């Protein structure tokens, strides 16, 4: 448990580390939005008082150590399989709150089958999906979500649509399934959008609490290291390059 901050009688505590976030350093790069996403999820878990009921399924990618950073029971799935593990956990323990935290390589490439079928079945789980258009952990290879023309370590001349097709729009794809209760896309590139992202994350967990079905929040994220940019440039890149390709919005919101 995180220690309670010490404040004097005439002081008002207005911000503290969420209880759902572990008191430790993360390994994320400067300018990486994983840190922001972690904090938003942790704040939501605290606000909804879900921490003690929650089980996290971490995935393979830069966030592979998410089980160290969140102060909840957690397990580590093989690459792409987190929605299947989450299905097993939730089916046997419907009273637990189960969420996965996945990157675009994990969810939209190797894990495409598992996430689509979990959504199709209407599994009552929440997916926090970080889309930074690249395979970060392994050094910046092209992902199914990379933009046409985007230079990556496995598309050094820029992604060529004729050879490797077009970026996958997961929030839209998942929204088309009847089992999906909530599928939205937000961004983490500035304070205003970050606050909107937090609201969406909260709604997603509320959907699970209400037993409405599958919920997913796609978060446009930065990878300054592999994009070869400064943190500031990468946030601009999200706003100017990613959002035109990946429009923000609500693709499915159940009543």
């Amino acid at each position, binding site marked *: 448990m995180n220690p309670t901050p010490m404040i004097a009688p005439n002081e008002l505590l207005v911000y503290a580390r969420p209880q759902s976030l572990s008191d430790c350093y993360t390994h994320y790069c400067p300018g990486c939005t994983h840190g922001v996403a972690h904090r938003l999820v942790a704040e939501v878990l605290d606000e909804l008082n879900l921490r*003690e009921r929650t089980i996290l399924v971490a995935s393979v990618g830069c966030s592979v150590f998410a*089980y160290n950073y969140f102060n909840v029971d957690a*397990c580590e*799935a093989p690459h792409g399989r987190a929605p299947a593990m989450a*299905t*097993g956990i939730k089916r*046997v323990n419907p009273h637990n709150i189960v969420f996965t935290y996945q990157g675009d390589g994990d969810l939209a490439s190797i894990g495409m089958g598992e996430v689509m079928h979990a959504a199709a079945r209407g599994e009552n789980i929440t997916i926090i999906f970080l889309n930074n258009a690249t395979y970060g952990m392994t050094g910046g290879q092209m992902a199914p979500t990379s933009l046409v023309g985007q230079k990556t370590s496995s598309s050094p001349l820029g992604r060529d649509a004729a050879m490797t097709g077009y970026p996958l729009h997961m929030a839209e794809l998942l929204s088309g399934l009847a089992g999906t209760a909530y599928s939205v896309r937000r961004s983490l590139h500035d304070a205003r959008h970050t606050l909107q992202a937090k609201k969406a994350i909260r709604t997603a967990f509320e959907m699970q609490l209400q037993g409405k079905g599958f919920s997913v929040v796609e978060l446009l994220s930065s990878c300054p290291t592999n994009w070869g940019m400064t943190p500031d440039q990468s946030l601009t890149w999200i706003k100017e390059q990613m959002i035109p390709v990946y429009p923000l919005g609500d693709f499915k919101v159940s009543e």
Partner: protein
Amino acid sequence: MSKKLMKGNVAIAEAAVIAGCEAYFGYPITPQTELLEYMAQRMIELDRVFLQAESEVAAINMVYGAAATGARVMTSSSSPGISLMQEGFSYIVASDVPAVIVDVMRGGPGLGNIQPSQGDYNQITKSAGHGDFHPIALAPASVQESIDLTILAFDLAEKYRTLVFVVVDGAIGQMMEPAELPPMREVKKERPDWALTGAVGREKRVISSLFMGASELELMNQELQTKLAYIQSNNEARYEEYLTDDADLILVAFGTAARVAQTAMQHLRREGLKVGLFRPITLWPFPSQRLSQLTHTANTLLVVEMNAGQMLYDVRAAIHDRIPVHFYGRMGGVIPMPNEIEKKVHELMRLAENTDELKEHQLSIKAQNGHEFLRM
């Protein structure tokens, strides 16, 4: 309870239910689909968890997730599906999470066919996935034994926090035999102290197989190897032997091949030949000690399998090649007949009368099949 006529696949499923299996995640594949279909009805009937996954890959990960929360959980598949699950097996054993897997083996490799085989022996006992590990493997030879060993599988998995396989060939899965089911056990409600249940009033728990530091991972591997060695030394090896006391030649076989070998043994005995049968019930831990003891009285072993020779090498290793080990096998889903085994035994015994002829015969067989035969 009285005996009922039951199909192997169904008997295994009901045995799992009796053992307290809380969740079944599976996928259709011949020749074990009846197990899935039975569970689809029975688990729902008992208000337990059943789900047909979208693939074997998904199924094993659902098992992993549920098992990480401390539930008794299983899946079943056949050879090509088992291959798909191997990633999951490696993760499950690396994280000390218990689970039961049923493999109803079919002809391979590749898509193969849907006929019975024993072609997954090596896969299960030696290379159930990447890295240094292997599961406990139980090999029933009848529908009754399938029931008993399935229940044992859940107990062993929980006791040692590891993966336990129930391995049958397609014939056992499909055949119908009279068998008795033990009484229903209660499903356990309390969870073990390592399970993920939600961190209520306690520190969080993590179930993972990732250990980034080399010395950290080496330590984890040493602990796993220690656990496996402990299982091996803890009297978990099981076997059955028939007429081995005075046997000159002992047939070594498991599953359906053992039943065929048993008939051959009885025929050969009627001819006055001193033949016995040693039937491993645990493929791992392999009953090496007892088999090795038998080489002090017998002078030849004949391993009979429905594959190209897999348990053969475990037999040789178990006895340190102390006496000659011969092999007879059929592949492709063909079940050997007793007369084929009898013919092979006659051949071996006739050849034994003439050592030179035997040496020549062995060399020519080696050239033909690439199998190694020992010189007497």
